[in-house]
């Protein structure tokens, strides 16, 4: 272990029972060449300091638990190779969220926004199981597939300049997930979701900075979803003026 190269980690610490504001703590530890950032945090937790709190689970970039700021950028820590960072690495909780403890942030605000966009299939009449699966062509699947890849890791909220200024903004992931159902050929609930999208602090707040799409670890393009959602919400509204009953074609 003595021969392994060392790196210094500057980690945000915050315990509301004892701290008024977050502080930092430094740990210098030996690292392995194939470690991800998360491996270093787990080593610190296991061997040096049992009081460090962070979330993680799958360590294969799909559960979305371990998002943090690494050298100031929102990252999935289980996905980022430590070798790409320098001798000193700063790890802090995701920006734009309230901190619960150390590297753990409060996602309840997101969960409410997520629910608000009605992220489920809405149909006028529920299809009976006996009728079998609906048909959907590979092209129709392609329409929404990428938006369904969101793992709710919240990196996009951390990167978004609008979320930073307008806490009520629905935000990239929630809009992308609502839009995902609007463009699913099996869904009939676009009117209800567009109503949500047209509400206050919603799709129109987006300044199209594109930061969300750049940081997404799953190559979802929330910025495109927000832009399409904006367009559709306006079209839907304009149609509503001409065809008073919503006029879905």
């Amino acid at each position, binding site marked *: 272990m003595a021969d392994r190269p060392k790196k210094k980690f500057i980690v945000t610490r915050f315990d509301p029972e004892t701290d008024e504001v977050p502080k930092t703590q430094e740990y210098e530890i030996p690292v392995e060449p194939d470690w991800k950032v998360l491996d270093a945090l787990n080593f610190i937790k296991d061997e040096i300091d049992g009081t460090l709190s962070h979330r993680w689970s799958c360590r294969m970039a799909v559960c979305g638990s371990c998002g943090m700021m690494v050298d100031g950028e929102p990252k999935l820590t289980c996905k980022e190779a430590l070798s790409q960072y320098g001798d000193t690495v700063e790890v802090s909780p995701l920006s734009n969220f309230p901190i619960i403890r150390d590297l753990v942030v409060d996602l309840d605000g997101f969960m409410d926004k997520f629910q608000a966009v009605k992220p489920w299939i809405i149909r006028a009449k529920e299809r009976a199981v006996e009728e079998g699966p609906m048909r959907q062509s590979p092209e129709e699947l392609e329409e929404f597939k990428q938006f369904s890849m969101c*793992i709710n890791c919240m990196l996009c909220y951390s990167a978004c300049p609008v979320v930073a200024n307008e806490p009520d903004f629905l935000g990239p992931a929630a809009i992308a997930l609502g839009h995902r159902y609007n463009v699913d050929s099996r869904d009939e609930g676009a009117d209800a979701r567009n109503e949500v999208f047209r509400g206050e602090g919603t799709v129109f707040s987006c300044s199209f900075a594109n930061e969300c799409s750049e940081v997404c670890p799953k190559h979802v393009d929330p910025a495109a979803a927000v832009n399409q959602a904006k367009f559709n919400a306006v079209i839907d509204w304009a149609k509503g003026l001409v065809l008073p009953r919503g006029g879905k074609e």
Partner: protein
Amino acid sequence: MRAAIAAVEADPDASVALVSKVYPMRSHTVSAEGGAAAVARDDDNFEMHGYDTVKGSDFLGDQDVIQYFVQEAPKELTRLEHWGCPWSRNDDGTVATRAFGGMSTKRTWYAADKVGFHMLHSLFQHSMQFDRIVRYDEQFVTKLLIENGTCRGVSALDVREGVVRVILGRAVILATGGAGKIFPFTTNGTIKTGDGMALAYRAGVPLKDMEFVQYHPTGLPGTGILITEATRGEGGHLKNSKGERFLVDYDYGVGTKAELGPRDMISRAIIQEIEAGRGIDGPYGQYVHLDLTHLGEEKINKRLPMVRELAKIYIGVDPVHEPIPIRPVVHYMMGGVDTDVTAATELPGLYAAGEVASASLNGANRLGSNSLTECLVFGAEAGRNAITFAKGSSDGEEGPLRAQGEEEAARVEALRGKKKGGERLAHIRHALNDTMESGCGVYREQESMDATARTVAELKGRYADIGLEDSSKVFNTELTAAMELGAMLDVAEALVNSAAQRKESRGAHTRKDAPTRDDQNWLHHTLCYFDPAGPRIDKKEVNLGKWVPEERKY
């Protein structure tokens, strides 16, 4: 989640608490890759799916459970389709199916190679429309509350606030998954610590068939990250250091299907290949190759995008151009809380579904892609039956239940920031991992299993002496990790003691000192009961039916 939806649909007045130690979309179903099995094609039928499953189970599956499962499977996957799951499609818009090990035809529904992810998110998002499903996120259940012989709720630590509360109800359903983290190399996420199994075990409910641990043949060395069986279903080859397709070139009993053989047999073949000196050296021991290069970039991108991403990020290999290093890793527990075809346990009011349970669908070896469907079929069944039970039951006496909650609060409080004792939590965990690997690996022997049983008992003693540093009440993950380790030790105890007494080889339980199956003496389930003095082993009849045990050949 499926149980919660079934419960609120079964009773318009029911209210369901969805209690989870993580946000629901973090649950480990998210990591499942390859697919979910259900009869879909004209060339398939329930008889074939049933027989494949019975044979895959090495005849330890309960045939009433298997028959119910195969009939319900297409309905459940169709329901999930109606709820938005993005199943991959054929050109005509019908749902596509792929080949999987041990399945005699293409019956595995898939959504590229992120099937667990899409199933979990589709279910969770669908569940959000029900006001009567009330989420309790990041609440760590510490005990099942039992009053007058009936399970009537749980006590749970609110991880954010550090307080223990009771959550009362007329029935409880466990859906907490497996316990892969008791082993060092596993596809399982860090949250898979056997909490639900331990809760039931401590409450006197037996754990069944715990000796049967599935090693997935293709995990990444070091991390244990899963490379889906769909790689083999889509035509990938396993190769040794000489570049030979050893499943074909050497006689490992996997038969003409070679890479489409069942997991237990392929895992054993890989170990034998390495022992024969035809493995490849790596920093984490010997491995073999999974070669996809002949499939071509387009097919890999379309059908196996996640595999390509995982291989690139976690082992620095692009499977379009190079073979992927793989080795068998612990993947799934066939054993679990003893349940029947109704998802009920022997404790009134307690139900279980999914990997935490052993409904005896999987017997001694699970076929890949049966378990995602199992979560839905028996989740729904548990939800409906829990409602029926609740309607015929009463709230019980609140006083004694709250008193149990108080006791739990005191127990957890005493553990938090416990300074005395010198043992580091992680060191006991590592010692547990090591002994489980040496005693309960792919190949087992009496001596090493007995040694592991003794070591686990010792570790339980050492666990009583752990030292914890974190005395904060707020999001104290050292405290939850300590409780998880307690669960892991109990589950490991049941596992190794169940394994040490089964003196035959069946399915995933393979003994070098008893290499054949012995239906005369061992065609029965193992039950393991908790006892403070040490586990008590009992047995239970296998529910046989029309499929008579025969030699398992592929």
